[in-house]
């Protein structure tokens, strides 16, 4: 199976070199082929699921808890200004 690595990398916001593109194209293809083996399993009698924990309806009551202090929230930022995260101008 052929994979458009450039497109996938763009969507994932990953800068890839040409070498890496080639390398990952091969790797991703072989991973897909590997996973494709699942298609040979007979799943006629199984329900489709997106969760295998068996859990359902895990919610919380609408109650507030203490938030981080502003300094804590910003402590990992590369750059900040007036209590806000600062980045290069985007539109």
């Amino acid at each position, binding site marked *: 199976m052929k994979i458009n690595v450039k497109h996938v990398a763009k969507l994932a916001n990953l800068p890839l070199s040409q070498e890496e593109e080639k390398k990952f194209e091969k790797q991703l293809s072989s991973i897909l082929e590997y996973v494709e083996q699942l298609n040979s399993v007979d799943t006629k009698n199984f329900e489709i699921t*997106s969760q295998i924990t068996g859990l*359902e309806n895990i919610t919380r*009551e609408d109650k507030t808890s203490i938030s981080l202090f*502003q300094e804590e929230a910003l402590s990992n930022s590369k750059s900040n200004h007036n209590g806000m995260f600062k980045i290069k101008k985007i539109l």
Partner: protein
Amino acid sequence: MKPVIGLEVHVELKTKSKMFCGCSADYFGKKPNTHTCPVCLGLPGALPVPNKTAIEWCVMLGMALDCNIPLFSKFDRKNYFYPDLAKGYQISQYDEPFCLKGSIKLGSGKTIRITRVHMEEDTGKLIHENVNGQGITLIDFNRSGVPLVEIVTEPDFDNTKDVLDYLKKLQQIARYLDISNADMEKGDMRLEPNISLRSNTTNTTNNTNQQITNKLPNYKVEVKNINSFRFVEKAIAFEIKRQTEIIEKKGIPVQETRGWDENKQKTVTQRVKEEASDYRYFPEPDIPPIRWNDKKLLMIKKQIPELPDTKKRRFQKQYNISQYDAEILTREKTLADFYETCVNDGQKANLTAKQVSNYIINKKIDIESTLPAEIIKNIKALTIYLRIDESEIKKIVERVLNENKNAVGDYRNGKVSAVQYLIGKVLMVSKEKLEVSRVKKILEEKLND
């Protein structure tokens, strides 16, 4: 050419806490980045746990919009990179939303189909600034993770009047349910119309061609993130004009996302967030699915108060008032409740519901600062005035005019204020309490004879 318009509306819920964490959702006007935690900052390893109230409110809104509520629902990740979204994905709902297939009936009698109502989280706020000549963008994550409900319609609108009616109805329902302030100015409601034009040229009687002309246009232009009803109106009008001009020149409008620029009074192409809108949705692995049963759904349904349209019809029938009056009285739930309290109190004082509604509407009563008991007292006083026969007042007026020839002369010579003196005399002579405006009217009629 006929406009084909659909709407996506985001409504921010007024829960105490955010959608997936315990940070306060009351972010408006707060110090930046003081309502955040590892979950809403998108830090690795944080575990989102959905807010039960937010989910129930979303379902409640869906029910109020006549939607089906599937017994099974789940959250999904919508992946895209933009700085207002710290995680790189937004938790939303893709193929199994909480509510499907509803409708709203408009004042015009037209029914607008609602495709879906789903739950998601709000993003952070971006502020663009210039500091020392350098353009920068600042991010405040206080809004990140605040519960949002998205209501999507089918492309059933063909004019702005219906669009506005729909938006007002939706806003009114959200307020009646008490799940959102739906305050446009605070960004509680954000509007995204999609607009295209369908040509209605039927230059052939061929059946297959006729079918084609009834199909939806093969493009649509979305106008994003409008925060005012007036701007929506202008943006739609502008798009209809812009697209008409393109099509008249035999072109096809580009499928794109645009924004409304209030300064330029036009829509402008927006740089798209992601080149391809390939969101690679997949089920949110951190949040187990939601399963309802009839009992739980019934409990939510029971919390829905009487909704505006039903209340309006009931008011007309029960209180024998006009559709117009019922409309005004039910515009806000607080006013409707106030009116009903007054009607109840009024009954004991032998006042009809119609007298009460007339008074409240004509005097534009401020219900925040007036008590129902005052209303009743005032109407009572008015009705006593009204019971006095007009001829009775006229008699007194004649007498006063005869006894005050000087003042009459003054008035007729242009001294208009003399009428005040005469009113005072009439009130003094009368044994009953008289309504000043009524006396004045009769006096002036006589004086100007």
